[in-house]
């Protein structure tokens, strides 16, 4: 029996026996689909999951591109963690991964209590001095940027639920509208 490959697998969802979900294409396909037929003949066994939510839990970490919602969440994470350039402060992007964001926020809070210049490390490894005002601006920019990513994800989830978002490409286009360069 071939090894389980989450990137190219099929599932029945709930009581629907006429279609299967394809993780490779992130969509429902009819059971007569030739690629599915070839996969079955490998031979493979098609598992049944009770709900789409179970499939999303299944693929969330192993292959987020396998469903639209997990792809939207993964896109949000990658966008938000992909760095932010604040041109008024530096042409070099700030790191925006969760640890860096948290560190920036904490540095801003500390500077409010104990005003001082903070040596901040940028994505290329260089350091710049940030005044308390610049720290505040950086923190605000970062929060707005991350929030825009989550807002976009929520729009995608609404669109998926409403049937207007049906492809990976639509999600990619939507997140591409979020700029990672701010003044």
């Amino acid at each position, binding site marked *: *029996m071939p090894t*389980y490959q*989450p990137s190219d*697998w099929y*599932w029945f969802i709930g009581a629907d026996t006429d279609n299967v979900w394809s993780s490779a294409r992130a969509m429902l396909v009819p059971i007569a689909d030739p690629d599915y037929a070839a996969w079955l003949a490998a031979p493979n*066994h098609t*598992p049944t*999951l*009770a709900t789409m939510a*179970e*499939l999303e*839990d*299944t693929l969330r970490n*192993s292959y987020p591109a396998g469903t639209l919602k997990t792809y939207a969440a993964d896109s949000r994470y990658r966008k938000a963690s992909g760095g932010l350039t604040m041109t008024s402060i530096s042409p070099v992007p700030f790191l925006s991964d969760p640890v860096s964001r948290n560190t920036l926020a904490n540095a801003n809070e500390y500077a409010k209590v104990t005003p001082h210049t903070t040596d901040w490390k940028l994505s290329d490894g260089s350091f710049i001095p940030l005044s308390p005002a610049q720290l505040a601006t950086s923190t605000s920019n970062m929060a707005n940027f991350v929030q825009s990513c989550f807002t976009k994800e929520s729009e995608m989830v609404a669109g998926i639920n409403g049937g207007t978002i049906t492809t990976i490409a639509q999600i990619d286009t939507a997140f591409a509208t979020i700029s990672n360069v701010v003044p």
Partner: protein
Amino acid sequence: MKYNQPFGVSDPNAGYINGNPATGVQGSIPPAESIEYPQREIVAMIAGAGLAPDNGDLGQLLKALKLADVHNVLKIGTNQGTVNQWSMACPALPIMPPPLGTSVWFKPGLASVNGGTTFSLNGSSYLPVVNCDLTPIALGDIVSTAWLLMYCDGPHWQVLAGTTRQFGALPILTHNANWYVNSTSGNDSFDGAASAPGSNNAGPFKTLQRAADEVIKYNQNGYNQIITIADGSYGAVILKKPNGSGTVFWIGNQPNPVNCSISTGVPNTAAIVCNGAGHFVQGFRLSSTGIGNADGIFCTDGLLEVSSLQFGPCTRYHMVAGAGSTLRMQGGVITIEAGAACSVHIGGESTGTIGTGTPPSLNILGPVNISVFARGIQLAIVQAIYASITGKANVHGQQYAASGNSIISASGGGPTYFPGDLPGVVDTGGQYLP
């Protein structure tokens, strides 16, 4: 013939002398026997070797000797008996029964079997056929095409040449071997090669352990050994590592494994322990209710394949793969009886792996307490996928537990794939892959 002295001379050992008329010495008179008898002896040798005496060929005595010594015409024959009672005919022997030192070339024409084989030459009493170390020839020793050099050492016929067995080595299988076990009609003193008792010690073994001890006596040589077990109740068995390449199949009752039951109440004892790669167990009900490490089936080494198993109560695991071993499910139906409580249904310990080749169906017949359905500890891997699951809601217990960097994989079956009304748990690096 004896020596015939000159005619009229009393000394039986007197030599012949030439006559000399010049000296008046009379030559010896050759008696008729001295001329006739040597001819008779020589002609008997010529004819005995199968030649027609011919005055035109004065080299026939030499030819006869070559026919006897090189072509073996006086000591060669094929089997006129059965698979375990060999017999051969050759030109009449001067001493009967054949004494120590008698040797003949013999072709049984049949592969050797267990249970003892005897040999008779020219109607002599049947004597046991043995190897050079005096062990009886056994399954795999003689192939049907072999010519054997048989040597009579007095009480036995030794096979000096033509056997496949090397001294000190195991008999080599030249075809699949079939064995039988029957807890009712069997006897562990039978040869195990027949499904019912018969003559010459033929009949099924009584215990599974006797069969397990038999199959390791052979170099499988790429062939399989198939053990067919009759419906009935059997005690625990330890499967040992077979010799050579090939698989030992243990076949109970695949459609109704409940009819072929292996059970024990001995503490720390599994119904089946597999201590070596190369076994395939199918069609049994397993139960082990002793205190301690009492499992349905415990694989300790190598690859064990299973199919169509039904589980009754077990104190510890229904199925467990111990350190470094692999237990693989191969199709059929895995049945869990109502009330077949256990600590863990499938588990891996210390790099042990439980996996699925061909997905079996899982059928849970009724309410059952299983503390953890799938468990992996200490770098174990538990990967199970079922063709179908029936009675999933009957299980009370935790779905899974992965610890010590173990992995439990549902192979795409989802976050709540395994039966159990309590959620799974991971800790100390364990992972659950839905």
